[in-house]
Structure formats: structure tokens, C-alpha cells
């Protein structure tokens, strides 16, 4: 089950061209998967520019390609400077620890976007963060 060489070449080219590149299900404006939506949320919170590729139109072929390139079969996948950083859980952990801001060369946001506990203790009903589901 070797990956399609043409697709692989194209993917490698895209990873090389974009300092920050997200492979996701859906688009940043209309994510089609909760994990992809969370990574978009992290990147938006950090205010970085990034390229996004919707994997859904070619899910299985792209899975084969990223397995060969990065030994990683699931999406979302965030690449920074040509290297796979991780999927949703790694990206969120690295946001919380400040490592992601360092890696991207941006300021750590004041408050992490996902802080359900602090919303609870601050009291009073609050509007949920805006969600872009198309």
C-alpha cells in the first residue's frame, strides 16, 4: 500500500512552502471535526498565519502519504518549518506550556482559549466562544 508518488511530492512541496501548515478535516471557517476545530482555535488564539489543507476529499491517499512522510496516519496534523509538531492533543499541550508560542515565535496569549474551569469560577453565565461551523 505505497502512497501515490505524485501526491506525496505535492504534499512535501506544500510542507516546504508553508512555515505553518495544517492538514485538517474541513476548512478553518467550517471545520468538519472537533479535533481540527480545536487546532484552528489554538492557531487563531496565537494569531499566526497558516496554510490549511482540507484532507477530506482525499482522506485515504493523504493518510498513506503522511504515514510515509511523518509516520503519522491521523488528522489534524500541524507542521511547523517542515516538521510535524503533532495533532490536537500535542498542539493543545504545547499551547498551555508556552512551547508552541516559542516555536512559532509569537507572544503567549494572556489566557488560553480553552479554560472551562476558570469560566465556571468567574461566575455568571457567559457567552460561549464563537464557533465557526459554516
Amino acid at each position, binding site marked *: 500500500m505505497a502512497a501515490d508518488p505524485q501526491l506525496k511530492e505535492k504534499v512535501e512541496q506544500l510542507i516546504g512552502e508553508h512555515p505553518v501548515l495544517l492538514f485538517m478535516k474541513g476548512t478553518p471557517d467550517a471545520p468538519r471535526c472537533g479535533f481540527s476545530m480545536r487546532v484552528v482555535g489554538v492557531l487563531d488564539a496565537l494569531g499566526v498565519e497558516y496554510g490549511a489543507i482540507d484532507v477530506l476529499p482525499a482522506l485515504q491517499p493523504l493518510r498513506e502519504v503522511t504515514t510515509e512522510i511523518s509516520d*503519522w496516519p491521523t488528522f489534524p496534523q500541524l507542521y511547523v518549518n517542515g516538521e*510535524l*509538531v*503533532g495533532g*490536537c*492533543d500535542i498542539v493543545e*499541550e*504545547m499551547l498551555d506550556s508556552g512551547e508552541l508560542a516559542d516555536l512559532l515565535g509569537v507572544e503567549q496569549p494572556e489566557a488560553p482559549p480553552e479554560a472551562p474551569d476558570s469560566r465556571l469560577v468567574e461566575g455568571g453565565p457567559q457567552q460561549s466562544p464563537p464557533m465557526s461551523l459554516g
Partner: protein
Amino acid sequence: MADLDEIRRMIEVALPGAEVEVLDEGGGDHLRAVVAAPQFEGLSRIDQHRLVRAAVKERFDDGSIHALSVKSSVPD
């Protein structure tokens, strides 16, 4: 449907000395593994996660696991 105990043992065998907890996050095939392993020292998170995934690859391949989220750390 994955056997959580088996998954835990597979990770323990691949990473001797690791402390491993495997939880069902839904449906029996979306799992979460909390792994503290000395082997993680000096590795990037993605490489730490790769080690955990590699340990249970067979169960991905046969479809018992659909998704695995990993929380990795180096023990104190």
C-alpha cells in the same frame, strides 16, 4: 472494541518501567493513554507519542482502536 488491559500491557512491554493508564474515552475504541516513561527523556512530544502508537500498532491495524490520544511525560 479494545481490551484496555491488553493495550496497557502492550505499552508496558514496549516501554519497560513505564507507568501506564489506559482509559476508554467513548465507544470502546476511542482510547486515552496516560504514559510516564523514562524512555521519553530527550524526545519531542511527537516522538513520545510515536513510541506509544507503535506499541499498540497491531490493535490499530485490526481496527480494535480507532483513536488514541496520548498524554506523555517523563517520570520524576
